């Protein structure tokens, strides 16, 4: 339609910021790098000039206090977005996220809700190493009281950021720098209720189910294309919301395909891929499986720097294809 706009993942995020800041005076943004044009790719360009430094607040190097302040501002009726240019830096802010934001509603009897959004960016590769490469979404998926969003598509990058900020609950919104170049034509914004957002089948198939979130969904989609060349029809389910987690769509899919490969760019143990396998295994009867489920994750190691090791560290399309072939063989 003529009303569609071309975005990439980064500018889709930017559009969400502009929409929120333009429409909701209670929205403000706080975090490191917000007055710099290079911290967060093209996803926040010139917001400070457009909306003023009073609403786009660049901060001291104090992740704990900035995140805690956003929790407090949210309790006082604002809709803050805290930006952590790397999820790794947020390890300093765990008390604010996990002890405070996630629990406040429950602790006070459901009478107050810190509706902040924590935007945590996965930013890896480029030989940056172990402290600048993590993907800790499984941690936040583990904590009741948080909503966790991990957009894989350009549309979700925009619309789920808006839904996150408008949600009355604390949300951890996790975007991945490796996705910023994806492009798409999007219809005008509609405000979604985050509580209604469910996993989505991005590609249909009945030989096996690939389930994943964020950047791993790109891997799954690309793997599905390659598998199709080998006549393997993979269904790709993008999880989108990791907490509260509702896998009905995935379970439904595996009921049909009988095979599951969970792909995740996080670590394996107590990670997202394992959770997908566990929920599906609980939900369907053993005889419905045509093969035991499998997962593709990071190896059990911190991120290396050396390019030769980086190239074997991150799960990619070839591995996904290989495991999928094992599953259907």
């Amino acid at each position, binding site marked *: 339609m003529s009303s569609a706009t071309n975005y990439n993942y980064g500018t889709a995020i930017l559009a969400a910021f502009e929409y929120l800041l333009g429409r909701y005076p209670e929205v403000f943004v706080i975090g490191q790098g917000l007055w710099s044009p290079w911290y967060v790719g093209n996803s926040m360009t010139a917001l400070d000039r457009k909306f003023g430094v009073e609403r786009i607040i660049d901060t001291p190097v104090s992740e704990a206090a900035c995140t*805690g302040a956003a*929790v407090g501002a949210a309790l006082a*009726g604002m809709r803050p977005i805290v930006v952590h240019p790397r999820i790794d830096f947020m390890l300093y802010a765990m008390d604010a996220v996990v002890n405070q934001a996630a629990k406040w509603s*429950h*602790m006070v009897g*459901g009478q107050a809700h810190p509706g902040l959004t924590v935007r945590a960016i996965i930013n890896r590769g480029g030989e940056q190493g172990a402290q600048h490469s993590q993907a800790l979404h499984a941690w936040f998926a583990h904590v009741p009281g948080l909503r966790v969003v991990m957009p894989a598509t350009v549309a979700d990058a925009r619309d789920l950021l808006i839904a996150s900020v408008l949600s009355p609950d604390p949300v951890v919104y996790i975007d991945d720098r490796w996705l910023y170049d994806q492009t798409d034509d999007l219809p005008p914004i509609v405000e979604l209720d985050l509580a209604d957002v469910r996993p989505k089948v991005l590609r249909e198939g009945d030989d096996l189910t690939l389930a994943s979130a964020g950047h791993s969904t790109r891997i799954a989609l690309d793997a599905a294309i390659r598998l199709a060349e080998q006549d393997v029809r993979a269904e790709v389910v993008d999880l989108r919301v990791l907490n509260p987690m509702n896998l009905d769509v995935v379970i439904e899919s595996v009921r049909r395909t009988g095979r599951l490969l969970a792909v995740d760019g996080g670590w394996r143990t107590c990670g997202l891929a394992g959770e997908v396998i566990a929920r599906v295994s609980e939900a369907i009867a053993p005889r419905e499986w045509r093969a035991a489920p499998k997962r593709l994750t990071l190896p059990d190691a911190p991120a290396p720097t050396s390019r030769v090791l980086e190239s074997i560290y991150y799960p990619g399309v070839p591995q996904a294809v290989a495991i999928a072939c094992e599953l259907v063989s």
Partner: protein
Amino acid sequence: MTASGAALGPLADPAYGHGPLSLGDTPPERLRGQLHTMLRIRMAEQHLALMRRDGLIGGPVHLGAGQEAVAVGVSQWLRGTDRVFGGHRSHSHLIALGGSLHGLFAEVLGKDTGLSRGMGGSMHLWDQPRGFYGSVPIVAGTVPLAVGAALAARMQSTGDVAVAYFGDGAVEEGVVQESLNLARMLKAPVLFVVENNLFSSHMHISLRQPSNATVRFAQAHDIRAELVDGNDVVAVQGAAERLVGHARRGEGPGFLEAVTYRWYGHVDWRDDVDVGVNRSIADLENWRARDPIGRLAAALKAAGEWSDGRHEAATMEIRGEIDQAWQQAVADPYPAPEALLDRVYAARRAARP
């Protein structure tokens, strides 16, 4: 004040300040109101102590008896739209804002009628309609929250202020230092109130910090600060008036260090002479003599503004309120089982996807 040694000087001396307060030109009527509020706090906490001792309260209670003048002096200048945050020892902060004893007691008993609807007990209090945004027991956890609530007030142009009550132990958490800097840089209208009772559970401040005055951090962060005898409600309210006014006028954060002492042990009803480090019976006795209530009452009496009879009457009245509030709280219902999941997220539907 220098940054080293026993910088508090006489303020930390248990033998200091045993006599009646000097009332200055504080209106007697206001002082009588404050005396009443302090009594109400004291007696409510004493009641909680006994009920805890007798096993009628299931969770821990951190009592602040002896520290009442701090919250009462500060709250003098607060209004219902301000944003007050506390910690594990926050009964006084709540009651000083006019909080309901029934709501408090019901909460401590885990009842659905409690201030936090029975989800929090003594360590998680909430009374936002009165300006009490909440208290939770992670040490220093609410300090940055107060900065954010103050920032919100500035953005909302309400002229409201936030208050963060915390202790001399909390000062040791890095997030407090970050919060001071952030508040200063954002010109957030927040008042940091350190109730320096010289102890963090069993540890005397001399075992934890090189100076017993925490106001040095306000100075390092260029925040306007005052240091007062926290057992002198006249001194507290004087300093608080200046600092709250400063914040409300948009001039930035304030820092109030109030030196005080808790009479009970760190938690529950015992005094902790036997379990603490560096806390002697003599010190405790001296501090009891520096009673913020007794000193004010004595001064008011000397000024002809108070009498044994009025004291007795006030005590009786509060006693009655306490008994009734407690009985009602005991009779109140517990939360329904659904509360466990219904209160996790803002909407029920969301809790069980």
